[in-house]
């Protein structure tokens, strides 16, 4: 019998979580790890490993073939569909406290696509080798250039077999044209709701009256297109985070059933003046507290609010192919089918890469709409976007569920080869996956209530909690 390599990590002082390359995991006492390390597995250990697909007798037997299939499904291959972020304008009518570089004042000139850029963007979309696309409009405030959105939408609906648009809007200004654009079923809205009134005002509007306008616009849009096509997320300033209960209540008030906690992502100088944003401990503590509060609240109220990222990480632990969210794909090789096109026609592999270029830290553009993609640069970036062979990740039981973010590493440390456990990305995800595993194995009715509903199950099957003998 051959055992596939197992990686392990102590969940607490009694229990260790182990997993193999396919993402099949189990819990064991530390004695098991000792036997595994000394190559002294007992017959019952071996039976367990074989039964659960962590081992095989012969290449090509059912256990071996099953493992190969599970392993291959863990890898993100891409293809088939594209996810393109478009920045038709950098101008914005808000000046949020945490928005450092990705906006220009409302009245400024030269921060919008001109007619030529629009045509080249459409040409770029036309050349993508896919029939399905999701186009996300960001900014700035994209609705300041509704005309550009309409032009892209009209083109994309003709060009692609399946298309979906997400407009990331502050919903600060609505008019008849915007509302008409929202009426199409293929248009989704993503907006920011930072929590209770005063938090939202402090972070985003700086003005109570503007916050009132936003809240009334949000209500109007939900009333018009229903809650299914609109999502909101709170950006958390970890120096002054909202009380979890207040934050959840603010979301419930609008009928949202999902929210996605995002830490403020300070860039450049701002990061230096906000050292808290560099260390993950404060964030991880807040996040854990929030999830615990959410679970307790769901159990108490019988309503179900989901924190998207925790639910997503749980889904990634349990199943392959959960690659809808771009941040946690692996490999996540930059390509034209997964790119950001800036207001000036420059193409970036991600939104954060765009920011690094804006603050002139490093130019990570992978081309522009005039000259096309820079293949040399794409080749240079590719190896950093796979965690399978990273000298630290190969020892981590969460590697099959996790991803990479070399752009974030670059932005925070100036290099991509920092030891993983010193990087924000790794620290944050170790904490998320530790918590996810802990929740999965916690047989507590309150936890099971939330988890089963987040996962779309009637109950949590016992088989999702394998434990070695």
């Amino acid at each position, binding site marked *: 019998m051959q055992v596939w390599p197992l990686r392990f990590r102590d969940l607490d002082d009694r229990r260790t979580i182990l997993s193999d390359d396919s993402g099949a995991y189990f819990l064991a006492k530390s004695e098991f790890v000792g036997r595994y390390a000394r190559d002294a597995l007992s017959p019952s250990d071996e039976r367990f490993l074989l039964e659960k697909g962590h081992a095989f007798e012969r290449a*090509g037997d059912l256990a071996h*073939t*099953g493992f190969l299939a*599970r392993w291959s499904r863990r890898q993100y291959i891409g293809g088939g569909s594209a996810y393109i972020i478009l920045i038709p304008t950098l101008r914005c009518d808000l000046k949020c406290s945490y928005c450092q570089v990705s906006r220009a004042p409302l009245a400024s000139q030269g921060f919008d696509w001109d007619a030529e850029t629009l045509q080249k963007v459409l040409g770029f979309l036309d050349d993508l080798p896919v029939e399905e696309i999701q186009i996300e409009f960001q900014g700035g405030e994209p609705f300041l250039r509704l005309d550009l959105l309409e032009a892209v939408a009209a083109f994309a609906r003709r060009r692609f077999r399946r298309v979906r648009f997400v407009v990331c809007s502050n919903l600060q200004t609505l008019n008849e044209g915007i509302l008409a654009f929202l009426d199409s079923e293929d248009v989704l809205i993503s907006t920011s709701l930072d929590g209770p009134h005063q938090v939202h005002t402090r972070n985003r509007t700086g003005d109570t009256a503007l916050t009132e306008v936003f809240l009334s616009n949000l209500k109007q849009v939900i009333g018009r297109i229903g809650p299914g096509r609109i999502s909101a997320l709170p950006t958390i300033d970890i120096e002054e985070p909202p009380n979890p209960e207040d934050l959840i209540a603010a979301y419930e008030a609008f009928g949202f059933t999902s929210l996605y906690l995002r830490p403020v992502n300070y860039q450049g100088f701002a990061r230096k003046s906000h050292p808290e944003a560099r260390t993950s401990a404060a964030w991880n503590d807040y996040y854990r507290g929030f999830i615990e509060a959410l679970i307790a609240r769901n159990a108490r109220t019988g309503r179900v609010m989901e924190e998207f990222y925790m639910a997503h990480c749980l889904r990634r632990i349990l199943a392959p192919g959960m690659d809808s969210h771009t941040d946690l794909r692996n490999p996540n090789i930059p390509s034209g089918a997964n790119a950001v096109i800036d207001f000036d026609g420059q193409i970036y592999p991600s939104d954060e890469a765009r920011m690094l270029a804006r603050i002139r830290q490093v130019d990570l553009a992978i081309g522009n709409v005039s000259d096309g993609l820079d293949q040399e640069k794409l080749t240079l970036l590719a190896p950093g976007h796979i965690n399978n062979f990273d000298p630290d990740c190969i020892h981590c039981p969460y590697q099959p569920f996790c991803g990479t973010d070399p752009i974030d590493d670059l932005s925070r440390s100036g290099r991509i080869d920092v030891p993983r456990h010193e990087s924000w990305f790794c620290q944050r995800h170790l904490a998320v996956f530790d918590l996810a595993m802990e929740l999965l194995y916690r047989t507590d009715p309150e936890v099971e209530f939330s988890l089963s509903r987040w996962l779309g199950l009637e109950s949590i099957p016992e*088989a999702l909690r394998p434990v070695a003998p």
Partner: protein
Amino acid sequence: MIQLRLKSECDRGLAPFVTRIAEGEPQCEEDATLTLSEAGGLSYRTGLATFRLRDVAPAEIAGDVLLIDPRRQIAHRLIRAASPHNTFLITEQCDQLCLMCSQPPKPQHQDMFAHFLAAARLAPPGAQIGLSGGEPLLHKDALFAFIDAVFASRDDLSFHILTNGQYFERDDLAWLRKHRTRLLWGVPIYSDDPATHDEIVGKSGAFAQLAPNLALLGLAGAALELRTVVLAQNALCLPRLADFITRHLPFAATWAIMQMERIGYGRMNWTRCFFDSSIDFASLGAAIDLMRARRQGVTLYNFPLCTVPRAYRDLAARSISDWKQKYLPACRACSLRASCAGFFEWYREEDGFMEIRPQ
């Protein structure tokens, strides 16, 4: 019940032949056109023969492919153009004796491949045809040659083959790969415990043969539908089987969990085997939850909707073939009837589901 055999009259001296009831102008010499319609029957002429059919209206059989058996004066409706449920019975021989078998095996084999080939060539565009038995792969060489011959002339057809999976070999890999997009293999697995599986299929060593052969299908990238009939013998172990499938058979496109059909051995063993999932869905629910958590496809076949808890009803397919399906008198009042599988023609209320409740 829809008639699969029609009374026919034709020259008894003729050899059996395949014909298609033409819709419009005949396309080939096998196409039959109506020459006379009268109270006693319908007269048809093909390029090669004439025949009559009785007790059927022309519209019911338009486009159908028939096998006319002159000696027995019968027309077999091999392909019903209006139905998605067309199956060629490859053989009635089988090496297993499953407790719930709806079509108990017979010792002799009648080779029908030449007729099936002729019929498949006349099938409606894009048709998926079922190949069943007995165990079709007992005649593997002839079966594979038949499939090759059909695909050589009809690249729009596909087959859904029901097999017990006992007869694949490593040498079949290339052939399986070549046809992987056009063959769907329906293979039963009743338990992850070899002894239980072997007991249900009535053959010792069956599981030990099945497991490596399923691996071959996986290596070939074949489209695989696992099939499990729920029985008193395996119902409580379904969560374990789900765990086994998600770990060792993740390449299976779907897992069909099926209710029993009360005919053949299924009728003989009904009281011993029938598991009333209308009063106890717990193990089924747990198995389905595991499949859902791990994102592997699962389908419920032959489950009336009212016997399935609401949370799982979207999985219950209208699976019972049209010609052997019925509803109960109680179903008249049910609002879900149009999307419900209903019951097998031979289902009996007195020893069937306890909880049938019109919705």
